[in-house]
């Protein structure tokens, strides 16, 4: 799909640029909101893995807890990436 066709308002380059900019800001907000929701999900996952590990303790439990924390850190890194680079 040609992005310019979405914002082509009869050759007015100024309005076109403004709309493209507004659209990108809108997309950025979507990205950031999705990343925030994902961070919340990751926090719940860390908490739940901790509870699960306490409910059933196996030799793998500490490793799974570490994985959940790494996943949360990755989610935070992605959120940071979206906020700073987009």
């Amino acid at each position, binding site marked *: *799909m*040609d*992005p310019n066709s*979405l914002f082509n308002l009869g050759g007015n380059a100024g309005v076109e640029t403004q709309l493209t900019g507004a659209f*990108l800001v809108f*997309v*950025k907000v979507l*990205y950031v909101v*999705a*990343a925030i929701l*994902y961070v919340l*999900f*990751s926090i*719940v*996952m860390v908490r*739940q*893995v901790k*509870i*699960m590990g*306490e*409910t*059933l*303790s*196996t*030799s*793998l439990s500490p490793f*799974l807890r570490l*994985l*959940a924390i790494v*996943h949360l850190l*990755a*989610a935070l890194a*992605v959120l940071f*990436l*979206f906020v700073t*680079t*987009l």
Partner: protein
Amino acid sequence: MPEVFDGSAKKKKSPKPESERGAHEHKPSRHVDEYSAVMSDERPSHRTFAAYAAKPLDTAFDVQASSEVIILLMRQHPITQVKWVAIAVALLFLPMLFSSIDLLGFLPLRFQFAALVAWYLVTAGFVLQSFIKWFYNVYIITDERIIDIDFHSLIFRDVSAAKIDKIEDTTASTGGFWGSIFDYGTITIQTAAEKREFEFEDVPHPTRVAKLINEMIIEEEREEMEGRVS
């Protein structure tokens, strides 16, 4: 005064000393290998990912009594997890399809890269969550009771237990093509406990497990008759 009204006679009665009591009252419980033909053939399991772990080592659960021994720990048969594994593999390769049809081509490159990063993060989260759900949804048989630990989602946990002597009926059912090929099925246990029915879903070797439960019920009855401590 007739003796029947003499309360002091009752008070004089003291419990028998330890040595005078019947020896059968303090017989310890037998080890599962002594009474279970199913378990005597099984070696203690070291395998962390096992769906059928007999006498598992390095495993405990939070409501476990100090004298309680885990005899069998079960999870759903790994073949029943193929669905989410297939979805995960598809999620891994889907971005290649998207790039070939240039789905996000209308966005600047940095947005496309961000979408790719987010996609793989979500895929990783999906795999982790699915694995954790399988790993921690377990069915445990101890020498005292059966326990069903369910994590319905990331938020809801359900732990149910019933003592072996409360079990009334056990049914093992294997159905379908894959169930027959890989020997897995569902065990339904009717109890007189608060939770009336336990279902061990898609566990390996359902007939063997039902046989073990029956052996344990018999042993529990024998313990009760002999007055052994359990």
